[in-house]
């Protein structure tokens, strides 16, 4: 059986998905449109996890996926997860799904919280009213999950019907007659209702003549509704009828027990501090510094150093020994490839895994608590001065982990211009792949101030991002709608299981990337510096890599690193930012040589340039995919490059005058 998992945002959809499917979760592009849906397997089938949505007809990009999946994906049934503590709103989506008339299982999550909110829910009579099976669960305590799992193999029957107002019912009948059904296999009544609601995803599937007739019917109905003062719009009328239905259902099933809503009172108390204009901001800065310190100074660094030591003292000698046993001599080409190409290039990047894992872990925890919504509220005033809105903060902070999911996270920003603007500045957020090169240069040149120097990269990246946003919002992105409507979720303790899975997925992605691109990149890199136009290069200067780098080196002279080695590293770094580090290690051979080639000022200038110059290949691909515009993508690239070039030049030139 193949299920689609659908629900409002933030109702525990991913938690349920994780509980129902075993750890094998595949993230992939699906359905031809550019959207990620997670697919997970359970005993006898597959569950597809769709992005959270309030309604079937889309208002933002990631909500369009649901309509698309409902119409085009092969499935046997729907699982609709519902927040039992917010039924009034959640059931609006449920009704839209039930009207589709396919087998649906309704899962009531957060049953444990319902008691704290001073309510009691009669699950059976809710099931009767909705005409389909209802499963009360708590994803947090795992209660009810086993029963649901057992029932996944059972096909269920259902019956559901809402009678809309006469005006609307007539319109439904008229549209049903127009639909030829050649294009759309789904339930006609559902299609008609969705069209009346203004679902644009469905309109695109109609033929020109159908579209023409239906637009006519919709506008006639809308006028009739406004004229009869039934509601202010057609969509509003449908919404109101559904709301009345929901209220009558809830009047039967929800019983007030009279206890006070403790959760709410607690939430308000915490919010008073966390969204306070002064304390709230200070706490935010402290949280960010805490994440930074844990990632770099305490935990991360200690583990990374230990790992580095183990690589150098045990792992490398072990491999060398092993190779020698197979008759590979110390000067043999394979020995050279393995030790100086692969171990130095890839191993060096892998050393940073603990730090990256901790960073992802902390970001996942912060996201899971509901704190990010408070940050968005607190920073909305400030961010709107830069042409952004509070919601931009989530993608921007995600960018510290990796720019790719950060760009995808901009889908929650409803206004197109604000979304593009946020996408444009994300590459300036210092992602985890840039950590290795900071670590390398900072520990060679700024031993004592290592922490501060690396921190300055994050601060600088953020400042450049904000100032760029300001600049762009005054020029290219003028007159954006600038809107901000945000649902504030209650605070929740994130489930360890979810945090673990999310972190694991991100880290596995990173290792996979290291395994593929960085390994391949390091090998190609090693080869290019080993071989030249005349066969094996006797000196690196005669290698292919040097030839390529030399072409670009003069361009970099004003920045303080006009040598082919730096140029080559930066070119290779476009494929994956970790490769900047790998190339430097492979090309220079050791840290001490880097120490002789750079001085503190040019090293700092190089770090800044690595931070800003170009997003990596994967990020460029995502930019193109999400913006659907090559022109925009090229604009992001050239804008970033110009900013990086100017800033690094200024740092190097002014730095040299001062010091």
């Amino acid at each position, binding site marked *: 059986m193949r299920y689609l998992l659908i629900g409002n945002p933030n109702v525990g959809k991913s938690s349920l998905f994780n509980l129902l499917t075993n750890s094998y979760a595949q993230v992939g592009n699906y359905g031809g449109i550019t959207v990620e849906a997670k697919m997970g397997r359970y005993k006898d089938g597959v569950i597809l996890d769709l992005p959270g949505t*309030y*309604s079937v*007809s889309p*208002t933002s990009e990631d909500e369009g996926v649901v309509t698309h999946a409902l119409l085009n994906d092969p499935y046997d049934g729907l699982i609709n997860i519902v927040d039992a*503590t*917010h039924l*009034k*709103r959640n059931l*609006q989506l449920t009704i839209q799904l039930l009207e589709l008339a396919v087998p649906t299982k309704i899962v009531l999550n957060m049953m444990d919280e319902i008691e704290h909110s001073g309510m009691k829910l009669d699950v059976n009579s809710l099931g009767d009213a909705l005409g389909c099976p209802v499963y009360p669960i708590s994803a947090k305590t795992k209660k009810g999950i086993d029963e649901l799992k057992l029932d996944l193999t059972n096909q269920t029957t259902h019956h559901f019907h809402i009678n809309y107002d006469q005006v609307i019912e007539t319109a439904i009948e008229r549209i049903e007659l127009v639909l030829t059904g050649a294009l759309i296999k789904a339930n006609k009544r559902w299609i008609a209702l969705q069209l009346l609601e*203004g679902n644009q995803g469905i309109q695109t599937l109609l033929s020109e003549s159908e579209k023409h007739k239906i637009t006519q019917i919709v506008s006639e109905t809308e006028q009739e509704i406004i004229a009869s003062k039934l*509601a*202010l*719009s057609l*969509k*509003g009328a449908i*919404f*109101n009828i559904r*709301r009345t239905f929901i209220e009558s259902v809830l009047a039967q099933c929800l019983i007030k027990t009279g206890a006070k809503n403790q959760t709410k009172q607690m939430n*308000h108390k915490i*919010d008073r501090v966390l*969204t306070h*204009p002064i304390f709230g901001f200070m706490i935010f800065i402290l949280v960010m510094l805490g994440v930074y310190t844990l990632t770099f100074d305490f935990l991360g660094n200690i583990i990374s150093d230990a790992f580095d030591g183990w690589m150098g003292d045990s792992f490398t000698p072990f491999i060398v020994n092993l190779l020698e046993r197979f008759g590979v001599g110390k000067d043999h080409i394979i020995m050279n490839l393995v030790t100086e190409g692969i171990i130095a290039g890839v191993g060096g990047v892998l050393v940073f895994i603990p730090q990256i894992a901790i960073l992802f872990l902390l970001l996942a925890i912060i996201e899971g608590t509901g704190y990010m*919504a408070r940050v968005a*509220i*607190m920073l*909305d*005033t400030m961010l709107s001065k830069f042409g952004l809105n*509070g919601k931009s903060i989530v993608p921007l902070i995600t960018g510290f982990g990796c720019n790719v999911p950060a760009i995808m996270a901009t889908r929650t920003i*409803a*206004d197109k211009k604000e979304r593009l603007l946020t996408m444009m500045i994300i590459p300036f957020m210092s992602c985890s792949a840039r950590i290795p090169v900071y670590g390398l240069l900072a520990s060679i040149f700024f031993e004592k101030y290592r922490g501060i120097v690396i921190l300055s990269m994050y601060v600088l990246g953020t400042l450049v991002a904000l100032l760029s946003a300001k600049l762009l919002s005054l020029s290219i992105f003028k007159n954006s*709608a600038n*809107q*901000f*409507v*945000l*649902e*504030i979720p209650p605070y929740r303790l994130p489930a360890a299981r979810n945090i673990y899975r999310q972190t694991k997925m991100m880290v596995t992605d990173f290792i996979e990337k290291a395994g593929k691109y960085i390994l391949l990149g390091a090998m190609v890199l090693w080869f290019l510096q080993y071989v030249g136009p005349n066969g094996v290069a006797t000196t690196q200067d005669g290698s292919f890599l040097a030839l390529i780098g030399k072409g670009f080196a003069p361009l970099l002279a004003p920045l303080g690193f006009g040598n082919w080695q730096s140029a080559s590293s930066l070119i290779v770094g476009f494929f994956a930012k970790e490769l900047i580090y790998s190339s430097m290690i492979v090309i220079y051979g050791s840290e001490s040589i880097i120490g002789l080639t750079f001085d503190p000022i040019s090293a700092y200038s190089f770090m800044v340039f690595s931070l800003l110059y170009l997003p990596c290949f994967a990020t460029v691909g995502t930019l193109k995919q999400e913006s659907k515009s090559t022109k925009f993508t090229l604009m992001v690239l050239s804008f970033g490059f110009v900013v990086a070039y100017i800033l690094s030049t200024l740092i190097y030139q002014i730095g040299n005058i001062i010091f």
Partner: protein
Amino acid sequence: MQNNHIKNIEHMTMGEEGQIIKLNHVDHHIRHRFMDLGIAPYATIKLLKKINNRLYIIEVDDVEICIRRKDASLIEVEVGK
């Protein structure tokens, strides 16, 4: 003082409750988003908090929602019913 009157959210006092009458000049996109969140005529809303007199935190259907003043001023509410 009239007991039963109409005003927009911007002029509500903290903790005040009322029923939405209509949304004035709200653009198509935001109207849709509002409806998804339950902000629509006949819904009961409560003003919970103002932040810097710029952001308004309201409660609709037991859900807290943050909107800007610009949008709050477009939502008409009947209070004291």
